[in-house]
């Protein structure tokens, strides 16, 4: 085996609460991708959620308490990787905002944030992975989830890796950069507005006639796939990591269990 830039790197996987609860297969796909690239992956048990629900609801005290827990659990790793742009953005961009400059936690948050990456961008930008060995016969379309796109600059990375998946054809949807209407608690606090937004999204998705919808965030995927299902659409939804890891034998999001 040739040496990879990742050899010997200890990566702590931040699973994200939605992956943990709803779709463990994304977590295992992330582990496979990281291990294939040469990392040794560990999953600290002391993680729960990144704290976004509290942070975005104005509950700063709880957001801070949760952030302290996450930082403590992950401080010992070379890198912290999350299969989500939104949670990645929270850990990387917003944790530092939770502590005042003179707070003893400020420095720890700063050091922590430097080590955090979203999964796909970690593979391409840090580990310099240029291709995957997976194959996937079929057409897919890719939605650029907002936080990953605008907070972390994730746009080209997943496309670059998808281009190396054998048999896969990417069909770009119109306005792939427009929000799907999920927005964390937004989608349940303002369901009708959220519905109007996701309806425009599913129309753009359907227009590509792709068989599968991919994205890097489970929240957005659950929103869009839930809407596609309600509309009776046959389009399947998957986290991009599942396709990149070649782990598509599990039922798609919201599909019947076999």
């Amino acid at each position, binding site marked *: 085996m040739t040496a990879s830039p990742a050899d010997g790197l200890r990566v702590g996987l931040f*699973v994200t*609460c939605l992956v*943990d*609860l*709803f*779709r*463990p297969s994304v*977590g*295992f796909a992330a582990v496979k991708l990281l291990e294939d690239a040469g990392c040794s992956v560990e*999953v600290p*048990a*002391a*993680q*729960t*959620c990144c*704290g976004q*629900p*509290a*942070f*975005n*609801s*104005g*509950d*700063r005290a*709880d957001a801070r308490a*949760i952030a302290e*827990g996450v930082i403590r*659990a992950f401080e010992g790793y070379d890198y912290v990787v999350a299969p989500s742009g939104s949670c990645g953005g929270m850990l990387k961009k917003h944790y530092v905002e939770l502590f005042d400059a003179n707070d003893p936690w400020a420095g720890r948050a700063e050091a922590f944030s430097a080590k955090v990456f979203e999964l796909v961008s970690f593979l391409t930008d840090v580990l310099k992975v240029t291709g995957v060995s997976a194959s996937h016969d079929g057409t897919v379309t890719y939605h650029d989830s*907002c*936080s990953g796109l*605008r907070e972390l600059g994730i746009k080209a990375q997943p496309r670059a890796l998808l281009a190396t998946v054998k048999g896969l054809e990417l069909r770009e949807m119109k306005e792939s*950069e427009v*929000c799907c209407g*999920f*927005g*964390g*608690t*937004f*989608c*349940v*606090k*303002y*369901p*009708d*507005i959220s*519905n*109007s*937004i*996701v309806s*425009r999204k599913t129309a753009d998705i359907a227009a590509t006639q792709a068989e599968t919808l991919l994205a890097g965030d489970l929240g957005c995927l659950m929103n869009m*796939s*839930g*809407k596609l*299902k*309600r509309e009776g659409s046959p389009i399947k939804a998957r986290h991009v990591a599942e396709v990149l890891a070649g782990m598509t034998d*599990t039922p798609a*999001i*919201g599909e*019947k*269990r076999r």
Partner: protein
Amino acid sequence: MQSTSPRFRKNAVEALADSELQSALRHVRSNFIEKRAKAVAALPEFDALRDVGRQIKDHTLAHLDLYLEEYEAKVTAAGGHVHWAETGADACQIVLDICRRVNARTVTKGKSMVSEEIGLNAFLEEHAIVPVETDLGEYIIQLRGEHPSHIIAPAVHVTQRQVEADFRRVHTHLDPARNLDEPTTLLGEARAVLRDRYFQADVGITGANFLIAETGTSVIVTNEGNGDLTQILPRVHIVLASLEKVTPTLEDAAQILRLLARSATGQDMSVYTTLSTGPRRAADPDGPDEYHVILLDNGRSAMLGSEYQEMLRCIRCGACMNHCPVYHSIGGHAYGWVYPGPMGAVLTPSLIGVEQAGHLPNASTFCGRCEAVCPMRIPLPKMMRHWREREFERNLTPATTRYGLSLWAFLAKRPALYRLAARIAAGGLGWLGGGKGGFRALPLAGGWTRHRDLPAPEGRTFQDLWKQKQRDGGRMPQ
């Protein structure tokens, strides 16, 4: 202006059901976005210019008192008058006093969001003075008895078909058989009707995009030239502007102008950029005899030094609302006050109180597109989050949200307990929904399942499976 922001939720539902509005909003989604993108792509230094714009405004806001004093001195030296208005009511009264002194009956107006903010038209009408809006969009909504739904395109919610009907209803002196099929014929008709009004007016009121401290000049940009006629033809010109419009120099304003039209309408420059300094001088062929500036505070100075100060950089280009998925869904009226969209979600609670406007900063997906396009680099989502924090601190967050949140946070702070709860939830929901793949309805999840299915969990949590895998020497659990 009276606020309907507390009824935001209801406003939104009505807006979603309004098919005429929905078809008008399609125009916002396509036109504005495309034009801005083209204009920005054609100016390589656009992003660098945004930094310059931000620096200029930040510097000005840090020394606002000095620049306002300088501005006042220069206006006075040019023969004009500066009036300071702390509240909207003060500003209205100052306008009325001026109008009364010159026996004004008709007042023409250029487009001014500040005049909407202080409810000037209604106030003047109450005092038997007729305000006439001269901007086409403002004219249309005045005919309809409405308020603007967008800060640069006030009548963007109205379809062409509706404008035609309004013109036929109001312009009864014109041939009923006339052809009004084209936007240009509508524009032509409005121009003809307004022409007489410009000459009738005793006072002209405009807003200001910039107030230049160095020269005492006010700057307005328009695309119709109506602002020029409004400020030049009447005997008295009143500039109504809020404090933060001041800019140190003409050069500063020129830099920011390069951002404004590109961000707003995708033009390099607005068709007219008009500068006025004081009343008509002896050698001038035209211009007003009196020149007044009303400097409105109405809550701005309280934003200085607060976490909302950066909002005062706003140049009212409208790019944030043009790119906002929530605005695209419900339009501007649903926000319930003068300023809609993301900028309104920050500004409105600052100006009328978060008790009134608490919904607005919450009704955002935080997709961040507003901040990505804002020419003045205003961190809009961050400031909306600050409002949510103020609401949370003051117990204004709805009780159900608070309880749900505190239960969740209780668990999120206790990993062992959290893992247990997650295992139970994933197992239970997976068992319930796995056979079908998801839920069409679920108790307590009505907000989600009203419009979407809820995908069922796979059945076991990742943490649980991972632990088993470690125990089994790395074999994947079946």
